[in-house]
């Protein structure tokens, strides 16, 4: 199984530790925990505390995927998504929402703004989040 996957660019990239992720999360503890897990899984993780900071990092060097919170100081996650949609360079970067919201309207709003997935923090373990990220990357870059 692993042999087969190695032929995929993503799997190769993961092994080479060159898949770059940006995480936008204001809670330091949560950010530290998920960054620790992602780094252990071999991802290169850039951290941002606010939507504005996240967008700046995205502009400077676009990553393969963005993990985005919705309730943030300043710009909300929705606004970050809107800004990304308007920008040709950032439009195609997949965004996974990682929030503790998660009612139908919130999920629909995020999806209509181009989010690839919506994960509720309290419902997913770091391991499950990594699996979802890998699935999305595999589907997109295969």
């Amino acid at each position, binding site marked *: 199984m692993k042999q087969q996957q190695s032929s995929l660019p993503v799997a190769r990239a993961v092994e080479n530790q060159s898949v770059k992720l940006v995480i936008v999360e204001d809670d330091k*503890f949560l950010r530290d925990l998920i960054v620790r897990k992602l780094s252990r899984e071999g991802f290169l993780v850039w951290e941002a505390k606010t939507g504005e900071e996240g967008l700046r990092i995205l502009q400077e060097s676009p990553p393969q995927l963005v993990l985005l919170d919705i309730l943030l100081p300043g710009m909300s996650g929705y606004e970050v998504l809107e800004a990304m949609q308007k920008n040709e360079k950032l439009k195609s970067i997949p965004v996974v929402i990682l929030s503790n919201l998660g*009612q139908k309207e919130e999920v629909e709003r995020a999806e209509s703004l181009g989010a690839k997935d919506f994960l509720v*923090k*309290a*419902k997913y373990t770091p391991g499950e989040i990594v699996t979802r990220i890998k699935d999305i990357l595999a589907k997109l870059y295969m």
Partner: protein
Amino acid sequence: MYITVYSRKMDSRDTTTNKDTLPAVPFGRSFTVRVFLFTFMAMLLLIALVAMIFLLQVPMRGHFLFVWLELTVSALILSFLVAYITTRPILTLAKMARRIVEGGSSVPIDIKRNDEIGQILHFFKGTAKKVSESREREVSLSNIKSQFVTVAAHQLRTPLSALKWSLRLMLDGDMGEINEKQREFLKQSYQTNEHIIHLINDFLDISRIEEGRFGFQFKKTKILDTIQKAVEASMAQAVVREVTLSFTKDVPPDIEAIADESRMYTAVLNILDNAIRYSDTGGEVMVRAALKQGTLEIRITDTGIGIPPVEQSKIFSRFYRASNAIRQQTEGSGLGLFIAKNIIEHHGGSITFTSEEQKGTTVSFTIPVTDDFIKK
């Protein structure tokens, strides 16, 4: 707090009602007097007509018939007029009452009359206003309540997520090696934390159900996988309580249903939680999936304490917990089955149960499965 606010409002209402007291209707404008006069005049007219016939002793047959006919027609017209003026205001009132019942917030009321009917309309308008005011207050109170629940749930979920993640990272060995004893304690902490998260999700769901905004995201789902996930998630609880948990599938494993995966998972988890929680050590919980006339039937049978017959009608009510359940376990919100029922009914299914005290309970629910599967 609640009561004081209300009683103060009631006091202010009472004074306005006192101010509203209308003066007595003047004799000349009285509805009663008018109806009386009208009927009396009609009677006099008829008597006069009859008297005329007898006094004048109308001789001709043809004329005689004509006069009787005239009398009958006059009586009809007069009766109609009396009936009309008396019942018209009643009909208007009935119409308004209907509008209020149907939820019309503003009821246009014509109070140009200043007789008894006008008075009734006036008080009726006051009542209608009060009804719509209390309805508005109810809506705004319920909004405040659900806003509170949403904010509180979100504020609680963030630290609980942090706990969940850190405990999980330790259990997964991401924070370095841990020994068996540490693992055991961490596992229990993780379960406790999961329990609180589950409870908060229940509160959120209830508040959404009450608001009528309990959203579903339906899509084609391999429904047995969803149930399997719920069974696996309940395994830890079953192990702790030393209850055997099994899942028998008498259906093809790739059976599909139009369902909301996460909501269905919650429904099954809630039913399983009850089955395991109220089973004694050494008990058994069996989940069985079978096809019955195009619907998937899931039966969850336990060997637990059962539900007392007199309480069986209430177990799907929110916050309700059977008396023997409370005696056995103080923990529990009484929300699980209420939520499960709501979810299953939204999927076009139904949920029923049979139970015998000290023997056990079987909860069965149905989910319609997609047509293309049945054709196979």
